[in-house]
């Protein structure tokens, strides 16, 4: 079986994604690197996830598909501009690596991690979720179809169970 990260890259290519937006993120790092090396994609490092939504709107105005790769902590940064997906009604796809789920080491990740599905839903984003490697390809493919064929704003939550729990290797006393 493929590495699920290879599956994500393959689906992005199959759906002719041309612009890939990201911030530094360990969970997405392999996909980001594959996109950077791709001849058919342009990757943009963002200063804040907030840029990703209007970038995607601009790309769509110009006839290109895009994806925003971010972490759950970045979702909060996007919320007002996420309203653009509703106002302009344009296809929007984001893949979100989750933090702050059960098992998380870093207490600072819990508030936004736990709030992520709720705030996305509050903004009218269709939220999908995957926690098994073998389901990644189909889930991301369905998300891309809902976005680019169905005209929806779609988020796929890549659950912490899938990505692995970050462990700093220390026990707290």
């Amino acid at each position, binding site marked *: 079986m493929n590495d699920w990260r290879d599956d994500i890259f393959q689906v992005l290519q199959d759906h002719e994604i041309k612009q890939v937006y990201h911030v530094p993120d360990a969970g997405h790092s392999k996909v980001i690197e594959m996109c950077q090396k791709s001849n058919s994609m342009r990757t943009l490092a963002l200063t804040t996830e907030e840029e990703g939504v*209007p970038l995607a709107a601009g*790309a769509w*105005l110009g006839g290109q598909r895009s994806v925003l790769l971010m972490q759950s902590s970045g979702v909060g940064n996007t919320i007002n501009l996420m309203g653009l997906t509703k106002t*302009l009604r344009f296809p929007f796809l984001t893949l979100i690596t989750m933090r702050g789920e059960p098992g998380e080491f870093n207490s600072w990740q819990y508030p936004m991690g736990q709030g992520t599905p709720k705030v996305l839903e509050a903004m009218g984003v269709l939220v999908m979720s995957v926690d098994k490697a073998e389901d990644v390809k189909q889930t991301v493919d369905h998300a891309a179809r809902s976005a680019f064929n169905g005209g929806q704003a779609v988020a796929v939550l890549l659950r912490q169970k899938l990505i692995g729990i970050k462990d700093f290797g220390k026990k707290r006393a």
Partner: protein
Amino acid sequence: MTATLQRRPLVKKILEGADDNLLVLGGLGSSNWDITNAGDRPLNMPLWGAMGGTVPMGLGLALAQPTKRVLVITGDADLMMVVSTLATVAAQQPDNLAICVLDNEKFGETGNQASHSSPRNNGPTDSGSGADLAMIARGCGIADTGTVREESEVAQLVKDLRTKKGPVFRLVKVMVEKLEFVMPPQDGAHLKDRFRQALLGRP
């Protein structure tokens, strides 16, 4: 230094003779009314909200349409909200993107409170930080920046915004004025669809 340039005739000059090769984004509020006053057209994308989003939207569009000229016209406070986006622009170096910031040193839509580009120590209600967006743009890595204050510089400004190799950043100091609202259609989906229809031949 008191600004003397008036934004409405200025924007009219900037957009004069706009053809199908010019894609225009107007930031929320006054810039939206300004580009609409110059003549509403399908290849204008006037924003009614999404503060902070105008420049990144222009960048996404410029990268998607490298053979068209993309011109972002917006206010100082809209850019200031996500000012770091200038570094994202600089990293991509889109040669077809021009950014024109109309800086009246005020939050004009909400009652002319001082914005950050107002001078420091300018009285209890009119003080800002003296933030210089052209300097910030340069610091973010956009090499071609400039500030325009005089009518005599406007012809060159128009030329630079319309034709010079990008990314081009121009800060234009404009007067504080009370102007009538000149509103384009408000429905975002309609604005998007008419833009794509004119540009791509499909909504």
